[in-house]
């Protein structure tokens, strides 16, 4: 079966790279390859445990990586080489923050190679419904087999 093609909401095409990098970065730590399942515009950042990180460039972009149905716990455990029993475990969330740092770092590298300067702030973790507000927020649902997680991209 071919790879699913996803379409970003209008005005957010340039941020498809974040979804791509998320799938690529997370895949090695899960049993099955991560794919983008669906994409949609949302009003607020999802309220779920995970991590968030800010990219400051021409736009300010807030990326969050959040748990949906066990996917993030599996990825965090695989990445940290530990058997976390809950995503709410602080060590598990630290691993999520670091995974997000890798995702965002590769995005920043790509932006830099395209001539777009950007700066990364340190990742933070906890409940990703963190009080941030954005003009546009896109939710990308990711799946690895039966495990699900999500990434949201907010643009100010």
């Amino acid at each position, binding site marked *: 079966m071919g790879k699913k093609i996803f379409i970003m909401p209008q005005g957010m095409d340039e941020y498809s790279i974040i979804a791509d990098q998320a799938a690529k970065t997370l895949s090695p730590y899960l049993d099955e390859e991560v794919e983008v399942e669906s994409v949609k515009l949302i009003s607020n950042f999802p309220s779920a445990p995970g991590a968030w990180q800010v990219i400051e460039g021409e736009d300010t972009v807030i990326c969050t990586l959040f748990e949906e149905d066990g996917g993030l716990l599996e990825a965090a455990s695989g990445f*940290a080489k530990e058997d976390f029993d809950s995503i709410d475990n602080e060590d598990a969330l*630290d691993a999520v*923050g*670091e995974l997000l740092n890798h995702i*965002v*770092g*590769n*995005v*920043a*590298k790509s932006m830099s190679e395209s001539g777009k300067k950007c700066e990364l702030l340190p990742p933070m973790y906890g409940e990703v419904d963190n009080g941030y507000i954005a003009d546009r927020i896109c939710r990308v649902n990711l799946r690895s087999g039966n495990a699900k997680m999500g990434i949201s991209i907010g643009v100010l």
Partner: protein
Amino acid sequence: MASILIVDDSKTSRKLLRELLETNGFEIAGEAVDGEEGYQMFKSLHPDLVTMDITMPKMDGIESLSLIRHVDENAKVIMITAAGQREKMVEALKRGAEDFLTKPFDANRVVETIKEVLDIKD
């Protein structure tokens, strides 16, 4: 064997790097969670090498590097960064960092870089 101080705000990163380095025979002098603590630990522990994450809260790796190099101009510091921080890497090299490594860690590259900086021959 050489002693290394690991400075990174991520517990996961510190753990993964510590395991990699210990597996390859290096001694871990200590671990610091931000640039300020890294600077203080450098002064008290006198490690042979410091691995310094660039993006950290409270005090970032660039500032910590500058402070360390100010107290010891021969201090050996390798910067650690996620990809995409080219300007900060260049700044760090200008301030005296020996080299840099990107995350996720490539085990061979980490060991080769550290051995090269410490002039350790196989």
